């Protein structure tokens, strides 16, 4: 008889295919250091997006879809930049402060609205995103309004400045790997299993003693803090923040990355960011048709690959074993 199914949860072992995938990923991760500025730029954006979408994935794994995720990225970016500017905080404490500010806002908002289900939660997070964007536009004295804040200095950690693309890519890659590892570790632990359980059947999870509201709130706060940390990083890389960098279409972009990458896999956010971040850059000349393409891709994925591109290896294995049998 096999051992109990717990140890053999998907992702527990690394097979030959998985090893090949990891080697490929390592090669891809190293590639930007041997490439031109454009590839490096894309690679940085992929890493930052992967962190932001990982935050969204944490919220979504608990069964809720946020349409205001960009707002929490904005809170992290603005709070860290303003803290550095007005209080002279160095990069790491400023980033931490940005993440805390975002976590606090997420705690207050989530406590009030996480009892809403499905489309109502989506609508309120959408409204919150717009509200925050308008507040940033309106509070010009502090936020610079529509002009945003320019001339943000490079990130410095212990005296080391991440002031070139090569150097910043190292920082962004570390952040992406760290967030990936954190999610991977979480979803192999009972708390992660509890999150999956309450996403599958909240009423049953609650009736076996899991406080659904508190666990969803924890995931929402952590996911928003993660997004904020990435926002702080992004502001140092771009050197500029403005309210329009965090509008609803950015939030929608995160959702598209998550769905196309894979909602139920820790790898989904990374895969989604890798596939979708370069596209707008490559199709600069076709900005208008881009959204049609996204819509079509989303429908195709949801219809034929509901667990996203990250589920392709598993699908391939299933097909393979069916053919072999």
């Amino acid at each position: 008889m096999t051992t109990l199914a717990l140890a053999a949860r998907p992702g527990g072992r690394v097979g030959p295919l998985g090893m090949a995938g990891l080697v490929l990923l390592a090669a891809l991760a190293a590639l930007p250091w041997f490439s031109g500025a454009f590839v490096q730029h894309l690679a940085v954006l992929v890493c930052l997006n992967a962190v932001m979408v990982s935050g969204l994935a944490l919220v979504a794994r608990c069964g809720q879809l946020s349409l205001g995720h960009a707002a929490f990225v904005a809170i992290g970016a603005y709070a860290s930049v303003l803290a550095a500017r007005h209080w002279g905080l160095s990069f790491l404490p400023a980033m931490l402060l940005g993440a805390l500010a975002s976590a606090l806002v997420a705690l207050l908002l989530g406590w009030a609205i996480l009892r809403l289900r499905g489309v109502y939660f989506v609508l309120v997070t959408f409204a919150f995103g717009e509200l925050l964007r308008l507040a940033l536009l309106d509070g010009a004295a502090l936020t610079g309004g529509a002009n945003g804040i320019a001339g943000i200095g490079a990130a410095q950690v212990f005296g080391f400045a991440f002031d070139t693309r090569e150097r910043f890519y190292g920082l962004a890659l570390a952040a992406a790997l760290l967030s990936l590892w954190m999610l991977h570790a979480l979803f192999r632990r009972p708390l992660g299993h509890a999150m999956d359980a309450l996403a599958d059947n909240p009423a049953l999870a609650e009736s076996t003693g899991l406080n659904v509201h508190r666990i969803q709130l924890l995931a929402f706060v952590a996911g928003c803090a993660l997004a904020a940390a990435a926002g702080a990083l992004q502001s140092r890389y771009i050197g500029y923040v403005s309210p329009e960098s965090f509008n609803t279409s950015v939030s929608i972009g995160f959702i598209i990355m998550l769905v196309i990458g894979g909602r139920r896999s820790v790898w989904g956010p990374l895969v989604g960011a890798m596939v979708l971040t370069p596209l707008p850059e490559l199709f600069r000349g076709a900005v208008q048709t881009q959204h049609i393409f996204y819509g079509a891709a989303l429908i195709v994925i949801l219809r034929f690959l509901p667990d996203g591109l990250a589920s392709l290896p598993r699908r391939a294995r299933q097909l393979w074993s069916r053919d072999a049998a």
Partner: protein
Amino acid sequence: MSAPLLQVEGLSRSFGGLAALRGLSFEVREGEIVGLIGPNGAGKTTAFNVISGTLPPTGGRVRFAGHDIAGGPPSKAVARGLVRTFQSATSYPEETVAGNVYRGLLSRILGTVPRGLAGREDGGLPASGVQAEMLRILDLTDLRAWRDAPAGGLAYGLQKRLGIAVALAAHPRMLLLDEPAAGLNHEECNELGRLLRRLRDEEGLTLLLVEHHMALVMALCQRIVVLVQGEKIAQGAPDAVRANPAVIEAYLGAPDYAHA
């Protein structure tokens, strides 16, 4: 006689103008099996949902083991040892049978801080004890043979038994069973009766069941509470309830039906 484990006092619940429960009071003592019966629409499910914390009451209170638990959330009641099952077969269909029981154990497995987050203070289960506890519950409910089968593919009777297994995993002192026999055939129903009796005798559990299956209720329960239009019209031993003219009038109908 031991102090009551569950005390329902003057419990009321209205939906808009409709009073689904009107001042319901009853008690369940430790180790008892009590049935809650009544015609459709009598408020049984509402009573169930209010007692388990799924719905807040509009009046009255629910005390379990000396603690006020009305108003929810249900996980608060579970933390005290009051666990419910669902009327329809409710499981995590994509997980295996063992995976379902594991998820039932989760509120006890979580580390101290996440356990507090989940609303659980007691019943902690160290990682080393998880497998043994899972096997114990699978054996107790005779589900061990299906432990690697996906829950969604099980026969209906097995799915309902799995629902009880998942509830047991949450470490109850008392189980609230919402129509456990609904949809079961004769043989499955007998098995259920044996299981419930075993839970009381061997596990020391207290049971409250809402049930339409009169033969099961009469054979199993020491006391029965009869609910009609949100009000308790009778309570007592099965024989007394069966002979009660008001109960026959409102619910049981012709005496021979009561023996069915």
